């Protein structure tokens, strides 16, 4: 078992990494080819002609095909359709993601998460995670989800012109966001965490850590 790749149906040498499922008159046919054979194949070539991507035919092109198909269904245009959106951390651009089909880092989802939501809908039928959550940040996730839920209610209230309710919700959201900010700050400055690091570095015990801090500031 495992994601064992099959050999390309055409050359039978390279691994097949381009998979096409054709449904013709209710009969399903699966085609598995490697990059090279797929690029050379007439039929595959036709299928990719409309995508207008680079000549490298791979998962990225298939994904971006889904991407553009998503928009043609009349879904909302993303905030920025051009490839100019870039991830602040790793520098990957939306265009690069569209070419390759993979993200560069966790920040990329922050940078163009909204842009790829139609793609996620096509792939998974959903854009909201319903599964497990890493234990340590469970409370933070609960807070995030609650904030999202309230924001939705807020939008609804505004649409319905229930401005008093909207104001209440806005205040609730603000309070939650503030509380979240505070608890994150506390965790960052966690005395336990920092002083252990510090003590290891300077080879002194926890009690002395704070004193040394002050001394260095004076210098």
């Amino acid at each position, binding site marked *: *078992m*495992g*994601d*064992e*790749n*099959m050999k390309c*149906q055409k050359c039978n040498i390279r*691994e097949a990494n381009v998979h096409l*499922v054709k*449904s013709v008159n*209710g*009969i*399903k046919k*699966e085609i*598995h080819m490697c990059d090279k054979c797929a690029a050379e194949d007439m039929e595959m070539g036709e299928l990719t002609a409309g995508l207008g991507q680079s000549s490298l035919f791979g*998962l990225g092109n298939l*994904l971006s095909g889904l991407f553009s198909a998503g928009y043609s269904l009349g879904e909302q245009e993303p905030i920025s359709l051009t490839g100019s959106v870039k991830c602040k*951390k*790793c*520098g*990957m651009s939306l265009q690069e993601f569209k070419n*390759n*089909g*993979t*993200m*560069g*880092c*966790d920040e990329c*989802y*922050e940078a163009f*998460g909204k842009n*790829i939501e139609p*793609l*996620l809908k096509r*792939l*998974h*039928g*959903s*854009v*909201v*995670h*319903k*599964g*497990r*959550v*890493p*234990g*340590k*940040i469970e409370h*933070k*996730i609960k807070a*995030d*989800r609650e904030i*999202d839920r309230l924001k939705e209610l807020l939008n609804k209230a505004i649409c319905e012109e229930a401005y008093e309710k909207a104001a209440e919700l806005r205040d609730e959201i603000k309070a939650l966001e503030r509380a979240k900010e505070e608890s994150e700050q506390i965790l960052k400055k966690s005395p336990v965490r920092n002083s252990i690091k510090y003590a290891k570095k300077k080879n002194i015990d926890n009690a002395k850590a704070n004193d040394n801090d002050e001394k260095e500031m004076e210098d």
Partner: protein
Amino acid sequence: MSWYIEAGPHHDVVLSSRIRLARNFSGLPFKKRADRSTSMKVLDKAKKLFKGMLYIDISEINVIERQALVERHLISPELASGKNNPAVFVSKDESISIMVNEEDHLRIQSMQAGLQLESALEKAISIDEEIAEKEEYAFRHDYGYLTGCPTNLGTGMRASVMMHLPAMTKTGVMERTLEACSKLGIAIRGLYGEHSNASGYIFQISNQISLGQSEDEIVANVKSIVEQLIDTEKKLRKELLEKDRIGFEDEVFRALGAFSNARIISSEECLKLMSDIRLGISAGLLKQPGIEAINELMLMTRAATLQKSAGRPLEARERDIYRADIIRKKLERG
């Protein structure tokens, strides 16, 4: 006994179950943007996390060794050809393998014999929880566990089951099943080839969707499809047997004859013979060899594993001779 030899629940149709979790560490770039120093950092973290497990540095072993690990289901072909610090950590009974620096930083794999998705999931989760206590995962409340490829977002989980479905394939039921399953978000792939003789009629059933459902829901979905496939396959096997009992028996015993006596067996033929013998065992026609022996031979007869046991690389014809040899020796031993 290794999970791949064991005869698990529904072993007459289901070979094994696997849960795979894809995970990345927060703050470190994913594969596409990871350089050597990043993959080194990832490997260092993994070494600390999985101290008690067997550590294999993929870059230190040769091509045959790597392929043997793939055949043993411990690593993927992707990891076998990895360039930046590819490694794997394996548990003693080989039921857990954790790939490092494959498509994502970590790929936790948990495997069990027969249909045991829940138990495989439990083991995978307990490892995942241990890691989460010590390291921070790349995770968002809306997209779940962040993976390099958006196809793995959310739970980062692939639940798959390996099944033997000769009756469904031979009677043409497989084609219709593929369509129905794909509508339900389930993928069926021939594992060793296309839907033909060459594949030994072994298929992998897995979920296509990982975001928007909980782990338990996904497992329940896959399990329910698998159970229906088991019923259909068993029903069709019974029909085939009743329709032409002597023809069925002939195929089984011819296969056993060739398997036990041939001097030269190609990997393709081997898959077909093993498939017929499995059918014979499941229909109660054969007492020997047992299902565990066939499971073991499934691995022993594969190209790289064969060459490993021979202790040297073998050309195609040499392999085919050695394969027949290994089979006869194993069947004699019992």
